[in-house]
């Protein structure tokens, strides 16, 4: 990929920035977390369902941030960023998920409570 280096601000990654997208991301992410806040304050459902729902809302917030703020997609400029993130996500899920699962089972079976 060749780039005109005489005007650095015209670099493809800088060109992705747009005030409209940043503002959309700002409003959408705050709204999603606002819904989480309301559900928790109202104790709108059982504890397990509530945890599942706010987890999904956190996931949607993450997607909104990645799309509107980080501008991730499969274009030539961004595809390596997107691919490396996709390869990284299983590591995050495994490290948090397996640890939580392991200790949940341990807690249930051997710890005093």
């Amino acid at each position, binding site marked *: 990929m060749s780039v005109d280096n005489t005007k650095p601000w015209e*670099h493809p990654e800088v060109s992705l920035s747009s005030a409209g997208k940043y503002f959309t991301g700002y409003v959408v992410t705050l709204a999603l977390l606002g819904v989480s806040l309301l559900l928790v304050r109202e104790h709108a459902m059982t504890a397990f369902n509530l945890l599942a729902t706010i987890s999904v809302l956190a996931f949607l917030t*993450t997607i909104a941030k990645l799309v509107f703020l980080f501008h991730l997609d499969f274009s030539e400029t961004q595809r390596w960023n997107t691919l490396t993130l996709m390869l990284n996500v299983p590591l995050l899920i495994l490290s948090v998920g397996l640890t939580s699962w392991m200790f949940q089972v341990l807690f249930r079976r051997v710890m005093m409570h």
Partner: protein
Amino acid sequence: MIVAGLHDDPPGPGTVLWADIDHEHDMMSTRMLGFWLYMLSDSLIFAALFAAYAVLSYPTSFMGGPTPRDVASPLYGYAETVVLFTSVFAYGMVMVKLRHDLPRAAIGWLLVSFLIGAFFIGMETHELRDVALAGGPPQRSGFLSIFWCVVVAHGVHLLFGLLWMLVMVAQIARDGFTQLVTYRLANLKVYWLYQGLIWTFVYTFVYLRGSI
């Protein structure tokens, strides 16, 4: 440059497998991708902290002391969320001004982002001081140790981001939007937005989950 794709003809005797000469590298893209990979590795640090938080938030880890419900208020946490996301949005505007080659406006938005970010640090400090005074210092229990660790680790990231912003204000003022300044601003964008992303998880799994 010859690009081989999945749907090209099968290789034969005349196929060129690689280029004989090295083409010019795009220095900015290379450094931005490198910094992106660094941020992904940083996310594994937070994964380790969140895993430890999950492990240490069982009642046995409270040691009779404060519980998640006592130390993290969802409403105050949401106020912090609004403040941090506003700072992130202000940094987005820095990138928009960069794109349009307006250095003075970019410095203005950088300072706005810095001040709102510093206000967030103030809110967090105030909150943690209250927790400490109400009988919840980090050494009180396993749960409090990891609570402080998660919140302070995020706060320290923000402090370094704020320091970086001041450095960039000075560099824009001194050099304008050179190639070096531009890729650093783009990397700081990734760094600052990433702190907002991590906060999403801190808020959901520390502040909100604690009150379920």
